[in-house]
C-alpha cells in the first residue's frame, strides 16, 4: 500500500538520482573503428537517440535524461487497475476515470508537454502503428501532474491552452483489450517539446508524431503497464 508519504518521497528520490545518471547518447552512424563515445553538450536540444553504447562519463547539464513519469495508483511495469479500465469487458460506456499521473521537471527550453497513452498491440487498417488511446496536448512546462479523473471534454480542468482527445472521443476512454484474451501493453509517454503543437483536436497518432518530430527537448518519458487479465 502506497502511503502519501511514500508517494511524496518518490519524486524526491527520482530527482536525486537524475543528477547521478545520464542519457545514452550516440548517433545512428557507426564509427569507423573503436571510439571513445562522449556525449556532446549540443545534444541538449536534439532528439536524443541511443540504445547502443552508454558512455562512461559523468552526468552533467549536457546529458539530458528522459523525465520520469509515475502514477500513485499503480507501479511502472505493473497492471493498470480496473478502475481505470471500465471498458475492459465491453464497450458499454465512456464513463472512464483517468489515472493520476505525475512527472519530473522537463529539460530547459521546454515550451509545451504532451502526454499520450497508446495501446501497443492494436493494429487497425492492417497498419503497423499503435493505437492512440488518450492524448493531452499543449500542457505548459510548469505542469507536473494530471489529477485522477480528468473529465472528458472539459478543458476547464486542464491548464490554459491544453486539450485532450482519444481515438473515439475528447477525453480518456481507457483500455479495451477484450477481457477474456491476452493482456495488452499500454504506454503513457511524456513528450517535452520546444513549441506548442499546432494540431487539430482530432489529431491522429501519425499526425502527432509528425508534429513532434524535431521538436523534442529530450527523450520521452515512459510509464509502461499491462491491462486487464491480471488487473484488479
Amino acid at each position: 500500500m502506497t502511503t502519501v508519504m511514500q508517494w511524496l518521497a518518490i519524486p524526491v528520490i527520482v530527482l536525486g538520482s537524475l543528477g547521478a545518471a545520464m542519457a545514452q547518447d550516440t548517433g545512428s552512424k557507426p564509427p569507423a573503428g573503436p571510439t571513445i563515445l562522449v556525449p556532446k553538450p549540443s545534444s541538449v536540444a536534439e532528439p536524443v537517440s541511443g540504445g547502443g553504447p552508454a558512455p562512461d562519463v559523468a552526468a552533467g547539464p549536457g546529458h539530458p535524461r528522459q523525465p520520469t513519469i509515475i502514477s500513485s495508483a499503480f507501479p511502472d511495469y505493473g497492471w493498470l487497475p480496473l478502475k481505470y479500465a471500465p471498458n475492459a469487458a465491453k464497450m458499454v460506456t465512456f464513463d472512464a476515470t483517468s489515472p493520476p499521473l505525475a512527472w519530473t521537471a522537463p529539460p530547459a527550453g521546454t515550451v509545451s508537454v504532451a502526454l499520450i497513452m497508446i495501446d501497443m498491440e492494436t493494429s487497425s487498417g492492417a497498419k503497423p502503428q499503435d493505437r492512440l488511446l488518450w492524448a493531452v496536448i499543449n500542457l505548459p512546462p510548469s505542469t507536473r501532474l494530471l489529477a485522477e479523473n480528468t473529465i472528458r471534454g472539459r478543458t476547464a480542468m486542464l491548464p490554459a491552452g491544453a486539450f485532450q482527445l482519444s481515438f473515439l472521443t475528447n477525453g480518456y476512454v481507457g483500455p479495451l483489450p477484450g477481457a477474456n484474451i491476452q493482456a495488452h501493453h499500454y504506454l503513457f509517454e511524456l513528450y517535452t517539446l520546444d513549441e506548442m503543437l499546432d494540431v487539430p483536436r482530432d489529431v491522429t497518432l501519425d499526425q502527432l508524431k509528425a508534429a513532434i518530430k524535431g521538436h523534442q527537448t529530450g527523450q520521452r518519458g515512459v510509464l509502461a503497464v499491462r491491462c486487464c487479465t491480471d488487473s484488479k
Partner: protein
Amino acid sequence: MKPNLLRSLVLMIGLGTSGLAVAQDGTTTQMTLSSPAFRDMEPLPLKYTQTGTRPSIVVSPGTNNAAVNPPIEWSNVPPGTNAFVLMLYDHVDTLMWAVVNIPGDVRSLPEAIPNGNQSSKLPAGAFHRSFRSNGWIGPAARQNPEGRWTYYWKLFPLDKKLNLPEDASREDILTAMEGHLTGNKAVMITPCCDGSK
C-alpha cells in the same frame, strides 16, 4: 466515484470475462510473444546485453561484444499470416534488432543467431540486423544508477514477405509493413539494464 457504482462496474467486468469479449479492433484472439529466458515486463538477463558481456562499455558496439539474442516464441497467429517481422527497439526508437521475412509457419527463434544472414539458425529467407550491424547487438544501458531504459519487442504478422534490402532501417521496415498486417501485433517490454542479472 461512488463505491457502489464502482463495485457494480467491477461486477460487470467480472461477468464480461465469462462471456465473449470483443476487443477494440473486433478481434477475439491475441497473438502471444514470449521467451523461455525472461519474463515480460522484467529486466533482460545480462547475457543478452553488451552491458553484461563487454569488459568495458567505453568502446564502440560490436567490439568484444559477446551478447547473444535470447530465444523467442510465439503462438495464436492470426489467419492469413504468411510472414513475420520481429522488432526490438528502445524508447528513443533505436532499432536494436529486426528479423525480417520470417516464414509464416515459423513459431520460434533460437538463442544466439550469429551475425550475418547465412546462419542455419536464421529461418530460411529471413535476414536480421540492428541499427549498426547485421545481427543482434544487445542493449548497452548502464546499470545503477542508469535508471530507466526501456526495450520494446514487437511481432508483426504479415500477409506477405517484404521486399527490403538487408540494410533496411526501422522506418523502412515500418513503411513496408503498411497495409500488410493480418491482425494485432504481439508485444513484450523488457527494462534494461538496471535490475538485469
